[in-house]
């Protein structure tokens, strides 16, 4: 262990984060995103860095709570919601009446950031739209989340924003999955393939948080707030590599190539004795190293594989894959890793760039000590939901570490605290509002 490694560990170990200052302390975020996972992600990310997040749920709770893969519900809430319900206060207000709308507006006007996934017309009806808020509070930063965005020819399309819509439009599934074979009826899996997690919604939330932070930086410099418009489709689109530049320069669109890659080979999953592992060699030097590792040094000069261009021809990729799998089939992923590391540790520069890593099932990831030691998972002992295994904030930071602080609570759990603490109301006023059904509790 070098001095730096030792220092970095002591300075950034998440188990030592408590008590350190938070980057976004003092920032208040209001989340108005019923049924919307991307909005929850945006607010969670800001909350992990220390922003105070107030989530407003409609009476009966956020409909996302009832989304329950395999029917699993913990006290009425499904696992997708529970996975993002961190570091928040939970408020439930009936905004059908004028009193509720007034309260919501006061909350909004006391906030620095609004994260909204409701359509503009609905926000106007709730008295919580950007234009009327900024009249009273020009410093407000307002993040508007949707599928297509707030302007442009498709902005009025009547869709309810969801992960699958954003994925489809992003161009991501188009280049994920197996191509159809010629001359035969396509099998179900020979199709554009969705990313199995809600990656579209997640990345929408990430770009949303990025947009908010950029806008806050501008506000620090100028005092001005602004609106941030984010189309979920476009968020994941930013990750679709060179889709546009290749169209522009070569008139070519990327197509599905299964587990291959049109620009680099080998860069694929190969079969090994205990499953699959990733194997890559980006350049000629690394390819030569790899051929030494598998005991076939002569193949580095085989005309099918001797240049990056020849290696990415699909028929050569297929030929090379079977050569690689002849070698890997009898070895475990760990043995492959050892073979690669023992060879590349003697090299430096481009020749060392042979890379591998086991294709883990989630339970295999959980067994690997690296992630546990680095505090990647939180085992939350949640007062409402019991023990929950959650992904921790991924950043290790020496000064103002991000952190998981609190878990999910039932809708309306923080009504009183928020009314009294943020809006400055009295206990008596609160009781009257609760009796009138303006503030709601689920339990």
């Amino acid at each position: 262990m070098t001095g730096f490694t030792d220092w970095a560990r002591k300075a950034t170990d998440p188990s030592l984060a408590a008590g350190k200052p938070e980057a976004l302390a003092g920032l208040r975020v209001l989340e108005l995103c019923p049924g919307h996972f991307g909005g929850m992600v945006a607010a969670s990310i800001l909350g992990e860095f220390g922003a105070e997040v107030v989530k407003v749920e409609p009476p009966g709770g956020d409909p996302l709570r009832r989304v329950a893969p395999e029917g699993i519900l913990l006290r009425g809430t499904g696992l997708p919601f529970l996975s993002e319900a961190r570091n928040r206060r939970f408020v439930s207000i009936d905004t059908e009446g004028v009193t509720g709308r007034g309260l919501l507006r006061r909350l909004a006007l006391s906030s620095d950031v609004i994260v909204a996934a409701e359509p503009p017309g609905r926000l106007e009806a709730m008295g919580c739209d950007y234009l009327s808020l900024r009249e009273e509070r020009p410093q407000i930063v307002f993040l508007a989340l949707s599928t297509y965005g707030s302007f442009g020819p498709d902005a009025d399309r009547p869709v309810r924003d969801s992960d699958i819509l954003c994925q489809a439009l992003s161009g991501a599934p188009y280049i994920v999955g197996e191509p159809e074979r010629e001359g035969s009826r396509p099998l179900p899996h020979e199709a554009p393939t969705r990313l199995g997690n809600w990656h579209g919604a997640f990345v929408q939330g990430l770009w949303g948080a990025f947009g908010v932070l950029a806008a806050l930086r501008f506000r620090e410099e100028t005092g001005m707030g602004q609106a941030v418009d984010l189309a979920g489709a476009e968020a994941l689109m930013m990750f679709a590599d060179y889709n546009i530049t290749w169209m522009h320069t070569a008139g070519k669109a990327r197509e599905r190539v299964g587990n291959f890659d049109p620009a680099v080979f080998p860069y694929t999953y190969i079969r090994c004795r205990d499953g699959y592992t990733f194997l890559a060699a980006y350049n000629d030097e690394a390819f030569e190293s790899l051929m030494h590792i598998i005991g076939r040094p002569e193949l580095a000069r085989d005309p099918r594989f001797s240049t990056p261009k020849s290696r990415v021809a699909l028929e050569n990729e297929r030929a090379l894959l079977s050569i690689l799998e002849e070698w890997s089939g009898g070895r475990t992923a760990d043995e492959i890793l050892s073979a690669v590391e023992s060879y590349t540790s003697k090299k430096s520069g481009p020749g060392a760039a042979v890379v591998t890593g086991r294709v883990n099932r989630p339970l295999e990831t959980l067994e690997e000590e690296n992630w546990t030691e680095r505090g990647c998972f939180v085992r939350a002992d949640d007062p409402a939901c019991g023990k929950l295994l959650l992904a921790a904030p991924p950043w290790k930071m020496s000064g103002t570490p991000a952190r998981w602080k609190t878990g999910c609570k039932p809708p309306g759990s923080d009504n009183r605290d928020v009314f009294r603490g943020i809006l400055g109301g009295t206990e008596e006023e609160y009781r009257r509002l609760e009796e009138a059904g303006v503030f709601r509790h689920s339990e």
Partner: protein
Amino acid sequence: MSGFREFAEKAFAPGAIPGKPEALAGIRVLEVATRIFGPATADSLGLFGAEVIKVELPPRGDLMRYVAPEGFFWKEVSPAFLPLNRNKLHVGLDLHPAEGKELFLALAEKSDVVVENLRAGTMDEWGVGYLQLRERNPGIVYAANSGFGQWGPFSAGRASYDATAQAVSGFSAVTGFPDQPPMKAGFWVGDYTAALMSAIAILAALAARRKTGEGQLIDLSQAEAMIRTLDWTWPYAGLTGKDRMRNGNVDPSYPPSGIYRCRDGFVAVSVRDADEAACLARELGAPELRGSRPVPPERVAAYCASKTTGEVVRRAEEAGFSAAPVRGGKEQYRDPHLRARGTVCPVDDPLLGRVDEYGPAPKLSESPGRVKWCAKPVGWDNDRVFGGLLGLSRTEMEELAGRKVIGKWADIPGARPPKGSVTP
């Protein structure tokens, strides 16, 4: 049309962007990175106005320069290198000799952020890591992007690419079809996702610095970034002791939402709530399914198979559920909506001419992001940075170039300027 809709058409109009200020103006970023994870982090900061100085090892530079789809270079540049390296200043600087280190430290003194993605600990071994830099500039925000983290059992020696993160995080295990092998996403999602998370942490650290004056180290593993994105995978594993399975093209949280084959392509059908589910059931002629059970995916598949994607989208809009076509690069390139939003935008580059690009995803009404210029050859901005910013004389720069401390492009595709261009 709502008031906001009307406001948005004007406030976000791409035509007005060049006259508006930039959100991250005044922030200087030093990038010591190759391929995607580090460069994409700096790229997203550069799109919003940060000045990014990309430090490359001369004469070959960032090895991503030679990653070219089907081996194709255009005007001596790979189309895969362009989207990662907009709005940057390119310098060729060797960090191995002492003079190179000193130049780098001098640049770091004048910078706010360092982004690197070398193997863990490499910058420290070279004497230009966070601990050395903060001696000279305590305000520096240092983003150390890596595969497995700067410390911990896997941190030493292991290299990582996008698909390493896809593989080891469990991401690939939940992507694809249950009766097929795990599917690697065909785009570099394990780099881009982590890169965006790195950029977010940098902005958070800069916000903290405004209060304290202190910089900090950000250690981000790309596998850990992917772990964070896997939504209910982890609580499910914790509660049931089971692996979440691959579920093909149907979203297990919102069945029968998913991707379906049409006569002329593919469409995403989406039902997020009971209203939409009821509308879909009615449209499919299956009102008996309107209750608690979702419409079986097979019924949706049969419905879509006889229609075009356009028909499904139109029928969905009329019937009250949601649908959208599965689009690829070709459709995006020509899409009037994306053009009107500046999400696909032309760049007028001084060296390459017109290049069409993805513009920034978040649209900011007052301080919008933008693509100002494209990637440059290795060392293209040496004079501007070493002369202009560090104040070296022409003679000093020539001597440093003679000793190969600073340098410019190799005479090979990927590194060099287009033929016939005027060099600076």
